[in-house]
Protein backbone atom coordinates (compact mmCIF):
# COMPACT_ATOMS: atom_id res chain seq x y z
CA UNK A 1 0.00 0.00 0.00
CA UNK A 2 1.32 3.43 -0.88
CA UNK A 3 -0.28 5.98 1.40
CA UNK A 4 0.66 9.61 0.79
CA UNK A 5 1.65 11.66 3.81
CA UNK A 6 2.49 8.68 6.06
CA UNK A 7 4.72 9.89 8.94
CA UNK A 8 8.28 8.65 9.39
CA UNK A 9 8.67 5.43 11.35
CA UNK A 10 5.26 4.10 10.36
CA UNK A 11 5.64 0.81 8.59
CA UNK A 12 2.30 1.24 6.89
CA UNK A 13 -0.73 -1.00 6.69
CA UNK A 14 0.51 -3.46 4.11
CA UNK A 15 0.78 -7.01 5.38
CA UNK A 16 -0.23 -6.05 8.92
CA UNK A 17 -3.26 -8.33 9.16
CA UNK A 18 -3.26 -9.76 12.72
CA UNK A 19 -2.44 -13.45 12.94
CA UNK A 20 -5.64 -14.13 14.90
CA UNK A 21 -7.69 -12.55 12.14
CA UNK A 22 -6.06 -14.84 9.61
CA UNK A 23 -6.98 -17.89 11.72
CA UNK A 24 -10.55 -16.69 12.22
CA UNK A 25 -11.11 -15.94 8.57
CA UNK A 26 -9.90 -19.42 7.65
CA UNK A 27 -12.23 -21.03 10.18
CA UNK A 28 -14.59 -22.73 7.75
CA UNK A 29 -17.87 -20.83 8.33
CA UNK A 30 -18.75 -17.46 6.95
CA UNK A 31 -19.97 -14.33 8.71
CA UNK A 32 -21.87 -11.53 7.04
CA UNK A 33 -23.18 -8.06 7.79
CA UNK A 34 -26.02 -8.46 5.29
CA UNK A 35 -29.67 -8.33 6.22
CA UNK A 36 -31.65 -11.46 5.39
CA UNK A 37 -33.26 -9.88 2.27
CA UNK A 38 -29.85 -8.66 1.07
CA UNK A 39 -28.36 -12.07 1.80
CA UNK A 40 -31.09 -13.78 -0.27
CA UNK A 41 -30.68 -11.30 -3.13
CA UNK A 42 -26.92 -11.84 -3.22
CA UNK A 43 -27.27 -15.61 -3.41
CA UNK A 44 -29.68 -15.10 -6.30
CA UNK A 45 -27.03 -13.02 -8.09
CA UNK A 46 -24.43 -15.73 -7.63
CA UNK A 47 -22.57 -13.92 -4.88
CA UNK A 48 -21.38 -16.23 -2.10
CA UNK A 49 -20.56 -14.52 1.23
CA UNK A 50 -17.24 -15.60 2.66
CA UNK A 51 -16.67 -13.31 5.62
CA UNK A 52 -17.31 -10.04 7.42
CA UNK A 53 -14.19 -8.00 6.83
CA UNK A 54 -13.14 -4.81 8.59
CA UNK A 55 -10.46 -2.18 8.67
CA UNK A 56 -9.55 0.23 11.45
CA UNK A 57 -7.22 3.18 11.73
CA UNK A 58 -6.84 5.55 14.67
CA UNK A 59 -5.30 8.90 13.82
CA UNK A 60 -4.03 11.63 16.09
CA UNK A 61 -4.45 15.10 14.69
CA UNK A 62 -1.19 16.96 15.13
CA UNK A 63 -0.58 20.60 15.93
CA UNK A 64 -0.91 22.23 12.60
CA UNK A 65 0.79 25.50 13.49
CA UNK A 66 -0.27 28.12 11.04
CA UNK A 67 -3.12 25.92 9.91
CA UNK A 68 -4.53 25.35 13.39
CA UNK A 69 -7.97 26.79 13.99
CA UNK A 70 -6.58 28.47 17.10
CA UNK A 71 -3.78 30.32 15.33
CA UNK A 72 -5.77 33.31 14.26
CA UNK A 73 -3.73 35.70 12.23
CA UNK A 74 -1.30 33.07 11.04
CA UNK A 75 -1.71 31.88 7.51
CA UNK A 76 0.46 29.61 5.40
CA UNK A 77 -0.15 31.92 2.46
CA UNK A 78 1.34 35.29 3.24
CA UNK A 79 -0.32 38.67 2.99
CA UNK A 80 -0.90 39.48 -0.62
CA UNK A 81 0.62 36.17 -1.58
CA UNK A 82 -1.05 33.23 -3.18
CA UNK A 83 -1.44 29.53 -2.48
CA UNK A 84 0.49 26.90 -4.39
CA UNK A 85 -0.88 25.97 -7.78
CA UNK A 86 -4.06 23.92 -7.54
CA UNK A 87 -4.81 24.94 -3.95
CA UNK A 88 -7.88 27.14 -3.31
CA UNK A 89 -7.16 30.50 -1.71
CA UNK A 90 -8.58 33.98 -2.03
CA UNK A 91 -7.90 37.17 -0.11
CA UNK A 92 -10.14 40.03 1.01
CA UNK A 93 -8.89 43.54 1.78
CA UNK A 94 -10.29 46.13 4.15
CA UNK A 95 -12.15 48.87 2.26
CA UNK A 96 -11.84 51.36 5.14
CA UNK A 97 -8.29 52.63 4.91
CA UNK A 98 -6.36 50.14 6.98
CA UNK A 99 -5.28 51.10 10.51
CA UNK A 100 -7.37 54.24 10.74
CA UNK A 101 -9.60 52.82 13.47
CA UNK A 102 -7.45 50.51 15.60
CA UNK A 103 -4.71 47.95 15.47
CA UNK A 104 -7.33 45.27 15.98
CA UNK A 105 -9.14 46.19 12.79
CA UNK A 106 -8.97 43.19 10.50
CA UNK A 107 -7.40 44.80 7.50
CA UNK A 108 -7.43 41.66 5.44
CA UNK A 109 -8.86 38.16 5.46
CA UNK A 110 -8.46 34.97 3.58
CA UNK A 111 -10.26 31.75 2.64
CA UNK A 112 -7.82 28.93 2.15
CA UNK A 113 -7.89 25.22 1.57
CA UNK A 114 -6.07 23.08 4.17
CA UNK A 115 -4.45 20.26 2.20
CA UNK A 116 -2.59 19.00 5.29
CA UNK A 117 -5.92 18.27 7.00
CA UNK A 118 -7.32 16.67 3.86
CA UNK A 119 -4.33 14.40 3.36
CA UNK A 120 -4.37 13.34 7.05
CA UNK A 121 -8.04 12.39 6.73
CA UNK A 122 -7.27 10.61 3.48
CA UNK A 123 -4.46 8.72 5.21
CA UNK A 124 -6.79 7.54 8.00
CA UNK A 125 -9.59 6.51 5.67
CA UNK A 126 -7.17 5.03 3.14
CA UNK A 127 -5.39 2.89 5.75
CA UNK A 128 -8.66 1.53 7.14
CA UNK A 129 -9.87 0.82 3.61
CA UNK A 130 -6.65 -0.94 2.63
CA UNK A 131 -6.87 -3.15 5.73
CA UNK A 132 -10.45 -4.07 4.82
CA UNK A 133 -9.33 -5.05 1.33
CA UNK A 134 -6.42 -7.09 2.75
CA UNK A 135 -8.83 -9.10 4.88
CA UNK A 136 -11.00 -9.66 1.83
CA UNK A 137 -7.99 -10.90 -0.12
CA UNK A 138 -7.10 -13.18 2.78
CA UNK A 139 -10.39 -15.05 2.38
CA UNK A 140 -10.09 -15.14 -1.41
CA UNK A 141 -12.95 -12.72 -2.02
CA UNK A 142 -13.72 -11.15 -5.39
CA UNK A 143 -15.52 -8.19 -3.89
CA UNK A 144 -16.85 -6.53 -0.75
CA UNK A 145 -20.50 -5.46 -0.65
CA UNK A 146 -22.62 -3.49 1.80
CA UNK A 147 -19.67 -1.40 2.94
CA UNK A 148 -20.34 0.85 5.94
CA UNK A 149 -17.83 3.39 7.20
CA UNK A 150 -17.77 5.62 10.25
CA UNK A 151 -15.48 8.13 11.91
CA UNK A 152 -15.67 9.14 15.56
CA UNK A 153 -13.61 10.92 18.16
CA UNK A 154 -12.07 8.76 20.85
CA UNK A 155 -12.16 9.95 24.47
CA UNK A 156 -11.29 13.61 24.87
CA UNK A 157 -8.10 13.42 22.93
CA UNK A 158 -7.52 14.88 19.51
CA UNK A 159 -7.88 11.37 18.15
CA UNK A 160 -10.20 10.02 15.45
CA UNK A 161 -11.09 6.41 14.70
CA UNK A 162 -11.81 5.33 11.12
CA UNK A 163 -13.76 2.09 10.84
CA UNK A 164 -14.86 0.39 7.62
CA UNK A 165 -16.64 -2.95 7.35
CA UNK A 166 -18.38 -4.98 4.69
CA UNK A 167 -19.21 -8.49 3.54
CA UNK A 168 -16.62 -10.21 1.38
CA UNK A 169 -18.15 -12.22 -1.46
CA UNK A 170 -17.06 -14.54 -4.25
CA UNK A 171 -18.72 -14.35 -7.66
CA UNK A 172 -19.62 -17.95 -8.45
CA UNK A 173 -17.95 -19.35 -11.59
CA UNK A 174 -16.12 -16.08 -12.28
CA UNK A 175 -12.36 -15.52 -12.40
CA UNK A 176 -10.63 -13.50 -9.69
CA UNK A 177 -10.52 -9.76 -10.36
CA UNK A 178 -7.61 -8.39 -12.32
CA UNK A 179 -4.59 -7.78 -10.08
CA UNK A 180 -6.22 -9.77 -7.30
CA UNK A 181 -7.68 -6.64 -5.68
CA UNK A 182 -11.34 -7.08 -4.73
CA UNK A 183 -13.91 -4.52 -5.85
CA UNK A 184 -15.97 -2.75 -3.16
CA UNK A 185 -19.31 -1.00 -2.97
CA UNK A 186 -21.67 0.59 -0.45
CA UNK A 187 -24.53 -1.25 -2.19
CA UNK A 188 -25.91 -4.71 -1.46
CA UNK A 189 -28.97 -6.81 -2.21
CA UNK A 190 -31.57 -5.65 -4.70
CA UNK A 191 -29.93 -2.25 -5.12
CA UNK A 192 -26.75 -3.95 -6.27
CA UNK A 193 -28.76 -6.23 -8.57
CA UNK A 194 -30.46 -3.22 -10.15
CA UNK A 195 -27.11 -1.54 -10.65
CA UNK A 196 -25.76 -4.56 -12.51
CA UNK A 197 -28.96 -4.91 -14.55
CA UNK A 198 -28.59 -1.25 -15.50
CA UNK A 199 -25.15 -2.01 -16.93
CA UNK A 200 -22.84 -0.81 -14.14
CA UNK A 201 -20.23 -2.76 -12.21
CA UNK A 202 -18.93 -1.48 -8.84
CA UNK A 203 -15.23 -0.67 -8.82
CA UNK A 204 -14.58 0.71 -5.34
CA UNK A 205 -15.94 2.95 -2.65
CA UNK A 206 -14.51 6.46 -2.85
CA UNK A 207 -14.45 9.17 -0.21
CA UNK A 208 -12.72 12.49 0.32
CA UNK A 209 -12.70 15.37 2.72
CA UNK A 210 -12.23 19.02 1.84
CA UNK A 211 -11.28 21.55 4.50
CA UNK A 212 -11.50 25.31 4.09
CA UNK A 213 -10.40 27.81 6.74
CA UNK A 214 -12.02 31.22 6.82
CA UNK A 215 -10.05 34.05 8.34
CA UNK A 216 -12.60 36.84 8.34
CA UNK A 217 -11.73 40.36 7.31
CA UNK A 218 -13.38 43.41 8.85
CA UNK A 219 -16.55 43.45 6.75
CA UNK A 220 -17.29 39.76 7.35
CA UNK A 221 -16.59 40.14 11.06
CA UNK A 222 -18.89 43.13 11.44
CA UNK A 223 -21.70 41.55 9.45
CA UNK A 224 -21.49 38.33 11.47
CA UNK A 225 -21.29 40.18 14.80
CA UNK A 226 -24.03 42.61 13.86
CA UNK A 227 -21.89 45.50 15.05
CA UNK A 228 -22.71 49.09 14.24
CA UNK A 229 -20.81 50.59 11.37
CA UNK A 230 -17.82 52.50 12.74
CA UNK A 231 -16.91 54.30 9.56
CA UNK A 232 -20.35 55.54 8.63
CA UNK A 233 -23.59 56.33 10.30
CA UNK A 234 -26.27 53.85 11.12
CA UNK A 235 -26.47 50.09 10.78
CA UNK A 236 -25.11 47.76 8.17
CA UNK A 237 -27.76 46.83 5.64
CA UNK A 238 -29.02 43.37 4.76
CA UNK A 239 -26.34 42.00 2.48
CA UNK A 240 -24.75 38.76 1.40
CA UNK A 241 -21.56 37.92 3.30
CA UNK A 242 -19.64 37.05 0.19
CA UNK A 243 -16.54 35.68 1.89
CA UNK A 244 -18.54 33.03 3.76
CA UNK A 245 -20.83 32.14 0.86
CA UNK A 246 -17.80 31.55 -1.35
CA UNK A 247 -16.03 29.49 1.33
CA UNK A 248 -19.04 27.17 1.77
CA UNK A 249 -19.35 26.61 -1.97
CA UNK A 250 -15.58 26.10 -2.26
CA UNK A 251 -15.51 23.40 0.45
CA UNK A 252 -18.25 21.41 -1.26
CA UNK A 253 -16.82 21.87 -4.75
CA UNK A 254 -13.34 20.81 -3.56
CA UNK A 255 -14.76 17.61 -2.04
CA UNK A 256 -16.46 16.86 -5.35
CA UNK A 257 -13.22 17.47 -7.27
CA UNK A 258 -11.20 15.30 -4.85
CA UNK A 259 -13.62 12.43 -5.46
CA UNK A 260 -13.64 13.11 -9.18
CA UNK A 261 -9.87 12.69 -9.09
CA UNK A 262 -10.38 9.11 -7.85
CA UNK A 263 -12.94 8.24 -10.52
CA UNK A 264 -10.94 8.30 -13.74
CA UNK A 265 -13.55 7.87 -16.47
CA UNK A 266 -15.91 5.98 -14.16
CA UNK A 267 -19.02 7.42 -12.51
CA UNK A 268 -20.00 8.13 -8.91
CA UNK A 269 -23.28 6.63 -7.80
CA UNK A 270 -25.23 7.39 -4.61
CA UNK A 271 -23.09 10.29 -3.40
CA UNK A 272 -23.51 11.27 0.25
CA UNK A 273 -22.45 14.78 1.24
CA UNK A 274 -21.95 15.87 4.83
CA UNK A 275 -20.69 19.34 5.72
CA UNK A 276 -19.72 20.58 9.18
CA UNK A 277 -18.92 24.14 10.15
CA UNK A 278 -16.83 24.86 13.21
CA UNK A 279 -17.36 28.48 14.25
CA UNK A 280 -14.30 29.85 16.02
CA UNK A 281 -15.22 33.52 16.37
CA UNK A 282 -17.35 35.96 14.43
CA UNK A 283 -16.69 35.06 10.83
CA UNK A 284 -13.73 32.78 11.54
CA UNK A 285 -14.72 29.25 10.56
CA UNK A 286 -13.42 25.87 9.52
CA UNK A 287 -15.69 24.21 6.97
CA UNK A 288 -15.19 20.50 6.40
CA UNK A 289 -17.11 18.59 3.77
CA UNK A 290 -16.95 14.83 3.20
CA UNK A 291 -18.27 13.21 0.06
CA UNK A 292 -18.50 9.46 -0.37
CA UNK A 293 -20.14 7.07 -2.79
CA UNK A 294 -19.67 4.04 -5.03
CA UNK A 295 -17.40 4.29 -8.05
CA UNK A 296 -19.10 2.34 -10.85
CA UNK A 297 -18.04 1.39 -14.38
CA UNK A 298 -20.33 0.86 -17.32
CA UNK A 299 -19.82 -2.58 -18.84
CA UNK A 300 -22.66 -2.50 -21.39
CA UNK A 301 -24.92 0.04 -23.01
CA UNK A 302 -28.22 0.86 -21.42
CA UNK A 303 -30.93 -1.44 -22.71
CA UNK A 304 -34.00 0.58 -23.64
CA UNK A 305 -35.98 0.71 -20.45
CA UNK A 306 -39.74 0.33 -20.54
CA UNK A 307 -41.78 3.31 -19.40
CA UNK A 308 -42.64 2.91 -15.72
CA UNK A 309 -46.24 2.08 -14.94
CA UNK A 310 -47.79 3.97 -12.03
CA UNK A 311 -49.56 1.83 -9.47
CA UNK A 312 -51.66 2.50 -6.40
CA UNK A 313 -51.51 0.07 -3.51
CA UNK A 314 -54.86 -0.84 -2.04
CA UNK A 315 -53.45 -1.67 1.37
Amino acid at each position, binding site marked *: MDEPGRPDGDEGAEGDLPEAAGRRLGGGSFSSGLTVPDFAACLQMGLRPVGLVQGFCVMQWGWYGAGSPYMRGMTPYSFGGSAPRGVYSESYRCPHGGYVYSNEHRIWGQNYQQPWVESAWGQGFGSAYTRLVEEAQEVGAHGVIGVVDSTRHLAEMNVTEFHILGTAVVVEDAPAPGGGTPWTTYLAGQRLAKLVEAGYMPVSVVAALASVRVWAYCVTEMLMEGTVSVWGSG*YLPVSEIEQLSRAHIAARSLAREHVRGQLGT*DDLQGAQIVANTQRLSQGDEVIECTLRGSRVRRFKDFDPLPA*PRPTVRLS
Partner: protein
Amino acid sequence: MSGTSQGAPPPAEIDIRAEMRRAAASLAAAAHDRRARAVTSDLSVDESLLLHSIGWEAVDVVFGSSVVSIPPGVWNWGSGEIAAASEAHNLAVRSAGDHLGEQCSAVRGHGVVGVRVEVDVQRHHVDVELTGTAVRPVKGKDAANVFVSDLSARDFTLLHNAGWGPIGLAFGASFVYAPRRSVGTTMRQSSQNVELTNFTEAMYSAREAGMEHMQRSALDMGAHGIVAVRVADGPMWFAHHAIGFTAWGTAVRLEAESHQYLRPQMVLPLDDATVEFEAQSLR
Protein backbone atom coordinates in the same frame (compact mmCIF):
# COMPACT_ATOMS: atom_id res chain seq x y z
CA MET B 1 -44.15 3.21 -10.44
CA SER B 2 -43.23 -0.19 -11.71
CA GLY B 3 -43.55 -2.55 -14.63
CA THR B 4 -44.18 -1.60 -18.24
CA SER B 5 -46.70 0.61 -19.94
CA GLN B 6 -49.75 -1.12 -21.31
CA GLY B 7 -49.27 -2.45 -24.82
CA ALA B 8 -45.46 -2.42 -24.64
CA PRO B 9 -43.70 -5.74 -25.15
CA PRO B 10 -42.67 -7.40 -21.90
CA PRO B 11 -38.98 -6.93 -21.09
CA ALA B 12 -36.70 -9.84 -21.83
CA GLU B 13 -35.92 -11.98 -18.81
CA ILE B 14 -32.47 -11.13 -17.47
CA ASP B 15 -30.20 -13.86 -16.17
CA ILE B 16 -28.82 -11.91 -13.23
CA ARG B 17 -26.15 -14.51 -12.47
CA ALA B 18 -24.80 -14.30 -16.01
CA GLU B 19 -24.94 -10.50 -15.87
CA MET B 20 -23.02 -10.51 -12.60
CA ARG B 21 -20.30 -12.75 -14.05
CA ARG B 22 -20.09 -10.55 -17.14
CA ALA B 23 -19.87 -7.43 -15.00
CA ALA B 24 -17.16 -8.89 -12.77
CA ALA B 25 -15.14 -10.00 -15.78
CA SER B 26 -15.35 -6.49 -17.25
CA LEU B 27 -13.12 -5.06 -14.52
CA ALA B 28 -10.15 -6.81 -16.04
CA ALA B 29 -10.72 -4.97 -19.33
CA ALA B 30 -10.50 -1.30 -20.16
CA ALA B 31 -13.41 0.99 -19.27
CA HIS B 32 -16.36 0.54 -21.63
CA ASP B 33 -17.38 4.17 -21.74
CA ARG B 34 -14.51 6.57 -22.35
CA ARG B 35 -15.58 10.12 -21.60
CA ALA B 36 -13.59 13.13 -20.59
CA ARG B 37 -15.70 13.86 -17.52
CA ALA B 38 -17.05 11.45 -14.93
CA VAL B 39 -20.66 11.70 -13.82
CA THR B 40 -21.34 12.28 -10.13
CA SER B 41 -24.78 11.84 -8.67
CA ASP B 42 -26.49 11.56 -5.31
CA LEU B 43 -29.45 9.77 -6.86
CA SER B 44 -30.31 6.18 -5.98
CA VAL B 45 -30.15 3.41 -8.58
CA ASP B 46 -33.95 3.49 -8.86
CA GLU B 47 -33.94 7.22 -9.50
CA SER B 48 -31.24 6.93 -12.17
CA LEU B 49 -33.26 4.23 -13.93
CA LEU B 50 -36.45 6.29 -13.73
CA LEU B 51 -34.68 9.31 -15.22
CA HIS B 52 -33.35 7.12 -18.00
CA SER B 53 -36.86 5.86 -18.76
CA ILE B 54 -37.90 9.39 -19.78
CA GLY B 55 -34.68 10.08 -21.68
CA TRP B 56 -32.89 12.10 -18.99
CA GLU B 57 -29.58 11.51 -17.24
CA ALA B 58 -27.62 12.79 -14.23
CA VAL B 59 -24.65 15.05 -14.88
CA ASP B 60 -23.09 16.26 -11.65
CA VAL B 61 -23.65 16.93 -7.97
CA VAL B 62 -24.02 20.71 -7.58
CA PHE B 63 -24.07 23.09 -4.63
CA GLY B 64 -25.36 26.53 -3.74
CA SER B 65 -24.63 28.41 -0.53
CA SER B 66 -25.39 31.83 0.78
CA VAL B 67 -24.84 33.63 4.06
CA VAL B 68 -26.75 36.90 4.47
CA SER B 69 -26.46 39.34 7.34
CA ILE B 70 -29.33 40.51 9.54
CA PRO B 71 -28.80 44.03 10.90
CA PRO B 72 -28.44 44.41 14.67
CA GLY B 73 -31.42 45.33 16.79
CA VAL B 74 -34.13 43.98 14.53
CA TRP B 75 -35.18 41.27 17.02
CA ASN B 76 -35.94 43.80 19.78
CA TRP B 77 -39.56 44.20 20.86
CA GLY B 78 -41.74 45.92 18.29
CA SER B 79 -44.83 45.34 16.21
CA GLY B 80 -45.63 44.09 12.75
CA GLU B 81 -43.32 42.25 10.38
CA ILE B 82 -39.56 42.19 10.99
CA ALA B 83 -38.90 43.28 7.44
CA ALA B 84 -35.09 43.12 7.57
CA ALA B 85 -35.11 39.48 8.74
CA SER B 86 -37.66 38.47 6.11
CA GLU B 87 -35.63 40.26 3.44
CA ALA B 88 -32.41 38.56 4.58
CA HIS B 89 -34.03 35.14 4.50
CA ASN B 90 -35.49 35.57 1.05
CA LEU B 91 -32.23 37.03 -0.30
CA ALA B 92 -30.23 34.09 1.06
CA VAL B 93 -32.48 31.51 -0.59
CA ARG B 94 -32.54 33.41 -3.88
CA SER B 95 -28.77 33.83 -3.92
CA ALA B 96 -28.08 30.17 -3.03
CA GLY B 97 -30.50 29.14 -5.80
CA ASP B 98 -28.64 31.38 -8.24
CA HIS B 99 -25.30 29.79 -7.27
CA LEU B 100 -26.82 26.34 -7.74
CA GLY B 101 -28.17 27.32 -11.15
CA GLU B 102 -24.75 28.65 -12.19
CA GLN B 103 -23.08 25.34 -11.31
CA CYS B 104 -25.81 23.49 -13.21
CA SER B 105 -25.31 25.65 -16.30
CA ALA B 106 -21.54 25.18 -16.10
CA VAL B 107 -21.95 21.42 -16.57
CA ARG B 108 -24.62 21.93 -19.27
CA GLY B 109 -27.45 20.66 -17.10
CA HIS B 110 -31.06 21.62 -17.71
CA GLY B 111 -32.03 21.64 -14.08
CA VAL B 112 -31.35 20.35 -10.58
CA VAL B 113 -33.56 17.71 -8.94
CA GLY B 114 -33.75 16.33 -5.42
CA VAL B 115 -32.47 19.58 -3.95
CA ARG B 116 -31.86 19.30 -0.21
CA VAL B 117 -32.74 22.59 1.48
CA GLU B 118 -30.97 23.47 4.74
CA VAL B 119 -31.73 26.81 6.39
CA ASP B 120 -30.26 28.08 9.65
CA VAL B 121 -31.53 31.39 11.06
CA GLN B 122 -29.24 32.99 13.62
CA ARG B 123 -29.52 36.35 15.36
CA HIS B 124 -27.22 38.14 12.93
CA HIS B 125 -27.25 36.00 9.81
CA VAL B 126 -29.16 33.45 7.73
CA ASP B 127 -27.29 30.47 6.25
CA VAL B 128 -28.78 28.56 3.32
CA GLU B 129 -27.28 25.42 1.78
CA LEU B 130 -28.74 23.76 -1.32
CA THR B 131 -27.44 20.44 -2.68
CA GLY B 132 -28.80 18.46 -5.63
CA THR B 133 -28.00 16.63 -8.84
CA ALA B 134 -27.91 18.43 -12.19
CA VAL B 135 -29.82 16.54 -14.88
CA ARG B 136 -30.39 16.93 -18.61
CA PRO B 137 -32.05 15.13 -21.54
CA VAL B 138 -29.72 12.53 -23.05
CA LYS B 139 -30.20 14.02 -26.51
CA GLY B 140 -30.90 17.62 -25.59
CA LYS B 141 -29.36 20.94 -26.51
CA ASP B 142 -28.15 23.45 -23.93
CA ALA B 143 -30.94 24.98 -21.87
CA ALA B 144 -31.64 28.70 -21.92
CA ASN B 145 -32.86 28.62 -18.32
CA VAL B 146 -32.17 25.99 -15.72
CA PHE B 147 -34.66 24.94 -13.06
CA VAL B 148 -34.09 24.15 -9.39
CA SER B 149 -36.46 21.69 -7.75
CA ASP B 150 -36.68 19.91 -4.42
CA LEU B 151 -38.75 17.15 -6.02
CA SER B 152 -37.13 13.71 -6.03
CA ALA B 153 -36.15 12.22 -9.39
CA ARG B 154 -39.16 9.91 -8.99
CA ASP B 155 -41.55 12.83 -8.59
CA PHE B 156 -39.82 14.68 -11.42
CA THR B 157 -40.42 11.67 -13.70
CA LEU B 158 -44.06 11.48 -12.69
CA LEU B 159 -44.51 15.21 -13.27
CA HIS B 160 -42.80 14.95 -16.66
CA ASN B 161 -45.06 12.08 -17.74
CA ALA B 162 -48.10 14.10 -16.72
CA GLY B 163 -47.05 16.92 -19.07
CA TRP B 164 -45.76 19.33 -16.44
CA GLY B 165 -42.29 20.68 -15.78
CA PRO B 166 -40.59 22.29 -12.77
CA ILE B 167 -39.34 25.82 -13.29
CA GLY B 168 -37.86 26.79 -9.94
CA LEU B 169 -37.88 26.75 -6.19
CA ALA B 170 -40.61 29.01 -4.79
CA PHE B 171 -39.74 30.29 -1.34
CA GLY B 172 -41.30 32.65 1.16
CA ALA B 173 -40.39 33.61 4.69
CA SER B 174 -41.72 36.09 7.17
CA PHE B 175 -40.83 37.05 10.72
CA VAL B 176 -43.33 38.90 12.89
CA TYR B 177 -43.29 40.31 16.42
CA ALA B 178 -45.76 38.87 18.90
CA PRO B 179 -46.87 42.06 20.70
CA ARG B 180 -46.42 42.33 24.46
CA ARG B 181 -49.43 41.84 26.65
CA SER B 182 -50.19 44.64 29.09
CA VAL B 183 -49.25 44.11 32.72
CA GLY B 184 -52.92 43.93 33.64
CA THR B 185 -53.67 41.33 30.97
CA THR B 186 -50.68 39.25 31.95
CA MET B 187 -51.71 39.28 35.61
CA ARG B 188 -55.32 38.49 34.81
CA GLN B 189 -54.45 35.60 32.47
CA SER B 190 -51.79 34.08 34.71
CA SER B 191 -54.29 31.78 36.41
CA GLN B 192 -56.54 31.16 33.39
CA ASN B 193 -56.61 28.66 30.52
CA VAL B 194 -56.89 31.17 27.70
CA GLU B 195 -55.79 31.62 24.13
CA LEU B 196 -52.80 33.94 23.76
CA THR B 197 -54.25 35.95 20.94
CA ASN B 198 -51.10 38.00 20.50
CA PHE B 199 -49.20 34.84 19.49
CA THR B 200 -52.08 33.44 17.40
CA GLU B 201 -52.37 36.71 15.51
CA ALA B 202 -48.61 36.88 15.03
CA MET B 203 -48.62 33.40 13.55
CA TYR B 204 -51.46 34.29 11.18
CA SER B 205 -49.65 37.46 10.19
CA ALA B 206 -46.37 35.60 9.54
CA ARG B 207 -48.23 32.89 7.63
CA GLU B 208 -49.95 35.35 5.32
CA ALA B 209 -46.76 37.27 4.55
CA GLY B 210 -44.71 34.10 4.05
CA MET B 211 -47.25 32.51 1.73
CA GLU B 212 -47.53 35.80 -0.13
CA HIS B 213 -43.75 35.88 -0.67
CA MET B 214 -43.78 32.30 -1.94
CA GLN B 215 -46.70 32.85 -4.30
CA ARG B 216 -45.14 36.03 -5.66
CA SER B 217 -41.83 34.27 -6.33
CA ALA B 218 -43.70 31.54 -8.26
CA LEU B 219 -45.64 34.07 -10.32
CA ASP B 220 -42.42 35.96 -11.10
CA MET B 221 -41.08 32.73 -12.60
CA GLY B 222 -44.19 32.32 -14.75
CA ALA B 223 -45.47 29.30 -12.83
CA HIS B 224 -48.97 27.90 -13.01
CA GLY B 225 -48.73 26.53 -9.49
CA ILE B 226 -46.57 25.14 -6.69
CA VAL B 227 -46.42 21.48 -5.69
CA ALA B 228 -45.11 19.70 -2.61
CA VAL B 229 -45.27 22.81 -0.43
CA ARG B 230 -43.73 22.44 2.99
CA VAL B 231 -44.10 24.86 5.87
CA ALA B 232 -42.33 25.46 9.15
CA ASP B 233 -43.19 27.91 11.88
CA GLY B 234 -42.41 28.77 15.45
CA PRO B 235 -40.70 31.26 17.74
CA MET B 236 -37.03 31.98 17.20
CA TRP B 237 -34.80 30.24 19.74
CA PHE B 238 -32.94 33.46 20.50
CA ALA B 239 -36.04 35.74 20.51
CA HIS B 240 -39.15 33.98 21.75
CA HIS B 241 -41.35 37.00 21.04
CA ALA B 242 -40.59 36.73 17.30
CA ILE B 243 -42.50 34.23 15.16
CA GLY B 244 -40.99 32.86 11.96
CA PHE B 245 -42.88 31.20 9.13
CA THR B 246 -41.26 29.67 6.04
CA ALA B 247 -42.89 27.94 3.08
CA TRP B 248 -41.26 26.40 0.05
CA GLY B 249 -42.12 24.13 -2.84
CA THR B 250 -41.45 23.56 -6.54
CA ALA B 251 -43.06 25.97 -8.97
CA VAL B 252 -44.45 24.07 -11.97
CA ARG B 253 -45.85 24.91 -15.37
CA LEU B 254 -47.95 22.88 -17.79
CA GLU B 255 -45.71 22.18 -20.79
CA ALA B 256 -47.97 19.79 -22.72
CA GLU B 257 -51.16 21.03 -24.31
CA SER B 258 -53.12 19.54 -21.48
CA HIS B 259 -52.58 17.46 -18.40
CA GLN B 260 -51.78 13.82 -19.23
CA TYR B 261 -53.77 11.47 -17.04
CA LEU B 262 -51.47 8.69 -15.94
CA ARG B 263 -54.16 6.09 -15.21
CA PRO B 264 -52.47 4.33 -12.32
CA GLN B 265 -53.16 0.63 -12.02
CA MET B 266 -54.45 -0.56 -8.68
CA VAL B 267 -52.58 -3.41 -7.07
CA LEU B 268 -53.55 -5.45 -4.07
CA PRO B 269 -50.48 -6.91 -2.32
CA LEU B 270 -51.01 -10.46 -1.14
CA ASP B 271 -48.57 -10.21 1.74
CA ASP B 272 -50.95 -9.54 4.62
CA ALA B 273 -49.56 -7.64 7.55
CA THR B 274 -48.73 -9.89 10.48
CA VAL B 275 -51.65 -10.16 12.89
CA GLU B 276 -50.38 -9.20 16.30
CA PHE B 277 -52.02 -9.95 19.63
CA GLU B 278 -51.20 -9.54 23.27
CA ALA B 279 -50.20 -12.65 25.14
CA GLN B 280 -52.52 -11.63 27.98
CA SER B 281 -55.56 -12.13 25.75
CA LEU B 282 -54.86 -15.90 25.79
CA ARG B 283 -55.53 -16.18 29.51
